[in-house]
């Protein structure tokens, strides 16, 4: 018996709702003489048809079709919705496992209400002659957050909608998602993140991991956004400059150890990598990208993609053929493998111990300082302002005495340098192989688009968001055997969501 209820709730009900919602208004329309009245009632027939279809299927739709009422019968919508909720409740309470109920909402009912809300709300607002610019988003978010509980008041009251509504409903949806998920996750022994007293330490630890790796990601991405904002091209060499920076640091330390017998701290590898990658980047731009800005190249976008991709391939093959495929790594910044932190109050432990890996923490700090320094550079120095001016309007900048071509070279050199610095900063943490950039490049592009192409704060925030999503997904997803395997997906999810709501990215603009 139970199975039939589930089949109705998941399959037959939604199909009848769709039929009712889409076709009932059309079925009623041909009756001459009723056209104007039916038109006025179009949206109410849509909602009534959908709700009736979901609750009673062909019975409701057949009744509406044969009776062809001029107005929706009184109480029709409320009765249908109550029947629908009753049906869902019967199924939910009879489910063998509460996890199934939560999954049903997360995967089926929530999204279905969201689609329904997105479909019906703008039509209702248009029908009433109200501003419907926010109606689609609010209908979708409201449908997902609380289904009919939000959609019904929206329908009847049709309140004035604003961006604040969107924000609140987005928060409510987020909270709904977390609450539902945490309820679901409680059924798993290996999930430590949600609603467990005493798991504050674990959650804090994962948050620290996420922010830590997020700052490192941001460091990788920031050079890419700089190049795009000034040059207007996406550099496909970025990954290889990152790799080259790491190898520069490695070679410096190797030379120090093998030729002079001294152990050099990897911190000194960073300026060396910065200089080398800046020079290579600037020379590359001067020789191979500048002609593009001088009008000597046709189809400049294709040219930019091919030339940067080709140069990246060359760099990678060069390092592979000279250095070999074995992974390399350098020693530690600090002679501390890890340290722990315990927060106490009146000798009672509140949180802890929280583990910090020495080098990771140090690298994250380097990343944060560099990004802050970069923001200072762009806002407080003449050269930084000149770069910003070129990113805003090349011609106007030229009129003001700034040479855009030199700024292009400087921007590419700086972008390459930032990639190189991040490589040099990370080689004490991750093993480096000549193709390492390929692995990270995809993530850097995601971060840049998520934060908004051309925005340095966007790269910072985007990096931290992706880091947090990956870490919390890997650390908190229930049924952890696959949680870490899908690590890259979590960042993509938030990326897709942000692009849906704000296609220009979080801080999207085309200048610094």
């Amino acid at each position, binding site marked *: 018996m139970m199975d039939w209820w589930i089949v109705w709730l998941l399959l037959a009900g939604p199909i009848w709702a769709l039929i009712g919602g889409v076709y009932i208004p059309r079925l009623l329309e041909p009756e001459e003489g009723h056209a104007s009245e039916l038109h006025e009632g179009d949206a109410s027939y849509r909602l009534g048809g959908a709700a009736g279809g979901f609750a009673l299927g062909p019975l409701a739709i057949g009744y509406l079709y044969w009776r062809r009422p001029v107005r929706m019968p009184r109480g029709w919508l409320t009765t249908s919705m109550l029947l629908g909720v009753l049906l869902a409740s019967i199924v939910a309470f009879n489910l063998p496992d509460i996890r199934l109920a939560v999954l049903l909402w997360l995967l089926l009912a929530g999204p279905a209400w969201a689609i329904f809300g997105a479909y019906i709300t703008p039509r209702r607002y248009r029908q009433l002659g109200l501003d419907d610019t926010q109606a689609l988003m609010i209908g979708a978010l409201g449908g997902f957050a609380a289904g009919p509980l939000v959609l019904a008041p929206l329908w009847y009251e049709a309140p004035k909608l604003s961006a604040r509504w969107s924000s609140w409903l987005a928060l409510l949806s987020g909270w709904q998602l977390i609450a539902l998920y945490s309820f679901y996750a409680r059924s798993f022994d290996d999930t430590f993140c949600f609603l467990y007293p005493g798991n504050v330490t674990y959650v804090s630890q994962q948050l620290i991991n996420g922010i830590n790796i997020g700052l490192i990601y941001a460091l990788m991405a920031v050079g890419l956004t700089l190049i795009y904002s000034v040059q207007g091209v996406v550099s496909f060499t970025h990954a290889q400059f990152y790799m080259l920076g790491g190898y520069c640091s490695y070679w410096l330390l190797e030379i120090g150890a093998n030729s002079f017998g001294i152990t050099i701290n990897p911190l000194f590898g960073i300026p060396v990598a910065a200089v080398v990658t800046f020079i290579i980047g600037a020379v590359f731009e001067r020789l191979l990208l500048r002609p593009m800005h001088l009008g000597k190249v046709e189809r400049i976008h294709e040219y930019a993609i091919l030339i940067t991709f080709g140069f990246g391939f060359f760099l990678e093959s060069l390092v592979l053929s000279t250095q070999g495929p074995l992974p*390399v790594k350098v020693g530690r910044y600090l002679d501390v493998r890890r340290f722990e932190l315990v927060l106490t109050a009146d000798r009672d432990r509140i949180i802890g111990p929280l*583990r910090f890996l020495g080098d990771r923490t140090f690298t994250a700090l380097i990343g944060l300082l560099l990004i802050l320094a970069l923001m200072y550079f762009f806002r407080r120095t003449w050269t930084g302002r000149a770069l910003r001016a070129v990113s805003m309007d090349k011609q106007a900048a030229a009129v003001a005495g700034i040479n855009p071509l030199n700024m292009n070279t400087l921007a590419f050199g700086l972008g390459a340098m930032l990639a190189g610095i991040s490589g040099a900063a990370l080689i004490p943490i991750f*093993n480096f*192989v000549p193709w390492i950039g*390929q692995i990270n490049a995809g993530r850097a592009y995601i971060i840049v688009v998520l934060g908004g192409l051309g925005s340095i704060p966007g790269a910072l925030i985007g990096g931290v968001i992706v880091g947090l999503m990956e870490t919390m997904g890997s*650390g908190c997803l229930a049924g952890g055997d696959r*949680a870490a*395997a899908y690590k890259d997906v979590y960042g993509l999810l938030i990326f897709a969501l942000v692009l849906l709501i704000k296609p220009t990215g979080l801080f999207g603009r085309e200048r610094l």
Partner: protein
Amino acid sequence: MIKKGMLLLLLLALSLPGLSFVGAQDDCNFAEETLKIGTLMPLSAPGAVLSGEQMRWIILEAVEDINEACGVTVDGQNWAVEAIIGDSEGLPERSQAVAERMIFEDGVVAMAGVFHSAVGLATMGVMQANAIPTVFSEPWNDNVTANGIQPYGNAGARVESNEEGIDYIFRISPASSMTSKASVDWLLYLGVDDVVIVAENTDYGVPAADKDKELLIAGGLDEDNVDIFHIELGQEDFLPLIDRILARPTPPDAIKTQITGETALNFTNQMTEAGLAPNEDTICITNQNAYQADAYWSTVPDGNYCAFFRVGIVPALLTPVAQALNDDHYAEFGADIASFALATYDAVWLVTDAITRANSLDGATIALEIERSDVELSQGRYHFPYTTQTKSPLEDGLPAWMWHQWPDPAVTMMQFFRTGQRGPEAAVIWPPAYWTHDTAYIEYGTDPEAE
């Protein structure tokens, strides 16, 4: 300026990756054409590029050695062997396309080598359909050989795919079940009762971890005390997963990695750095890459006392050929040679030996000669006891993967006990017949060679 720059880049790019290689002797009177043998290896991410590069090197060594011995003789004519090297990227769909290109455009007569189980599983159907005799030297997935006599996925048994009942696929690397059994036997001998397995999410890692779990449970462990976590090949940051394992109420007795390539080194490094293992409570079992010690110690500086499994004969018993290859490999890469590289070297020899004996370039004739192989190469004596000319392993009560499988690849467990040790210096701790320090495990913080 631009054209010059583009041309320079193009020339440099084209000159770097060698796509085929022939090393030939002048006095062998070779035929004008070469005899092409194909091979697939990961030379780009996300595959295990480190292993792919080593495989490429050993293939070229094998071809050079074979051609120095006047190549392959068919109908009294010497043929120089040419290796057609394809980059699989470790991706099944890509490897299928490359394999088809090798067969239809390059005209390979046989395949040898191949890295990654996913690539082996994806391409074996292509080889079978086109009658290309293939000797796999690395894919471990049981189904690579089992599919010879029993269905796998949508594919029926290979022996039923043609009228002659010929199976063109052979394997000289161990099956996954063989390596699992060795390491699980060792763990059970040590008396562990709580194991965490971290495996790559591939056609190698998933079944290998499942097999480990099955054997551990069969050995008496509670099902709840064997946890499997999957990771993605090429992943870099494992800290969230490591913290998840650290948050368990009690530390596991052992952490076993079923990960290939540099990803394994990254995971092991982060595991040791976070203090998860090795320590007094938890045994660390890392990938056989550890045998290539220079890379291991430079990337896993805290990896002392980690155990690792090694496929292939124990270092003390290396044959002269294997020892010479190891020396060359060390000179080239600064690392001792991995067993899959030796197996790949042998796979090329095995194929060319079969072609010479077959005195034909016909795929079916060559495959039947590979079945009859009985030849001593760098890793030992190669023979295939279960073939179309003998019997099915099922008749002897053995699993289906023993079909077209070399039965004797050695699997040992080894363990470092001093930072900076070379692979061959590590202690052999399993099986007991090969013990070098009279123990199955060197306790954390001890040195069995200390006075």
